[in-house]
């Protein structure tokens, strides 16, 4: 389940935001964190995640930092993306979370 409540602007300077619920059984643990950061590194955009809509924001390209978030199952994951390929990055992130990182 996810909703893209983003202001869909073409200006790269304005961050895109969206959220998705973690549906995989054990939350954002080891394997999902690796998958998520690997996917994030495939984009030039700055990608951050948080457990609340207003942060604190964590670099989604760092497995060490993503693991520190300790996001449990059922938590809502907020994404904030800035950059030219931001829209594609956001779509990919949401798809990964929604897909349960292939674990469901």
């Amino acid at each position, binding site marked *: *389940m*996810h909703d893209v409540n983003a202001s869909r602007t073409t200006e790269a300077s304005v961050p895109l935001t969206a959220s998705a619920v973690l*549906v995989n059984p*054990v*939350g954002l*643990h*080891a*394997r999902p*964190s*690796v*998958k998520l*950061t*690997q996917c994030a590194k495939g984009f030039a955009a700055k990608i951050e995640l948080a457990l609340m809509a207003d942060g604190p924001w964590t*670099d989604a390209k*760092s*497995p*060490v*930092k993503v*693991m*520190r978030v*300790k996001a*449990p199952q059922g938590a809502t994951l907020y994404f904030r993306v800035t950059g030219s390929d931001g829209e594609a990055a956001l779509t990919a992130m949401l*798809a*990964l979370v*929604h*897909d*349960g990182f*292939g674990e*469901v």
Partner: protein
Amino acid sequence: MTEICLTGRAASPGLAMGPVTVLTATVASRKATGDPAREADALKAAIEGAITEISELIATVQGEVADILEFQVAMLGDDALAEGAYDAIAVGLAADHAWRSALDAEIAGYRAAEDEYFRARVADIVDIRDRVLAHLSGVSTVTKITGGSIVAGDDISPSTFLAADWTRGGAIALAAGSPSSHVAMLARARGAPMVVGLGAWLWNGRTPALALVDGDTGTVIFDPEPETRLLFEQRIAAANTARAAADAGRAEPAITADGRRIAVLLNIAAPEDLADLDPAICDGIGLVRTEFLFEASQGLPDEDSQYAVYRRILEWAKGKPVTIRTLDAGGDKPIAGLTIDGESNPFLGLRGIRLSLARPEVFRVQLRALSRAAVHGVLKVMLPMIADPSELDRAGAMLDAEFAALKAEGIACARPPLGIMVEVPAAALRAEAFGAAFYSIGSNDLTQYTMAAARDIGAVADLNDTSNPAVLALIARTVEAGAKRGVEVSLCGDAAGDTRLTTPLLATGLTTLSVAPVAVGRLKAAIAMVSS
């Protein structure tokens, strides 16, 4: 000598007895250079060395083990992990001290986690810490474990586990640890009994010589009294006999005590499940789940890649029948870009055949791939979540059309017989009304839809009981419809592998059961005990 009996949590099943190997933290000494730049270089080289070492290890393993090691590589490759250590080195700390304190701070964060899955990662970070420290000092800190011994310690790292030979028996007894840890997963996969959470050791400084580990109940007995040891040895012998009998009987046909021949088929979720399996242990494959082909991260699979997988499975079966189920997405199996988000009750929503009929462009590709694969063996195709005969008819018409199109194109193909899963009470109640080539009872869904109780909701899980007379009556009704129409009826849900249900299931008249490969020996042994 007084025996010490400790109770913890079972993390991997089975019984084991053996000499005790106590894991001790080896502290390797290292001479610091005193030069921050050289210390930073030493740490960098040690981290890179650790990454290379783990990467080499990854090449030799697969599946879960590889995932665990890839996580370690990802963590080590992230500069954020060593950030604190480099800061400390810059102000004059030695590389090993800096790394140890940075990692200990990281470990403390995991140890404090509310969620057990994150707490269980402590062992991974400790493993990472020690591997880099070993590279810094040039000494291996991984304790050598002799095969067949009982490993006792506070916790055990995946590296230590993987370095030991578990083919000769042995078990793990931990004061701390977690059933959710990576090592627990590895232990279950390798068949090593494991008990965690035993609490502080009460050895009073004297290391025990022998231990008995019961991974079924979660108990460990150190230095057992002779009579305790004798009883345990008898239990191990009984368990070994039972397992040997089940394994030996795996390749034998399943026959009840009163001489009824029961067909035992396999349920598989991916072709890899068949690796190392001899087709002789089964009478065919009763259920191939195809959801694995549709993992969203890889996009929807094209016709050729589906065909290749189906063909591989048919070739493995060497002429024995193979039943492949068309995509059963939706419900508890969402697929991004295919299933519907936000249904108020996904189990009563667009799932199984309903989704396939709603997305004909996706369904047609699967039907074409199946028709092409059908020339490579005895293929049967089954449709999930059928509730009304019109659904089968529509799917049948689509299969006919794809088969005709392939033939017109001159592509080798055959039209496989089309059967239905009976998992909705509406299908069981009037099974005769369906023109299906066979019926396969999906007992998991049939039970939850009949009893209106999900098995993963603890408060109502008791109601989710396949042996309830209402569920058994629907199964018997389906068997009867199959007999009247002269078509095969099988059962492929979890109930087939639950040997407590073998007698009531066979009493319904069922003669074909389909189970996971691991349950075949057990089921055949249970069938041999049944007499009507």
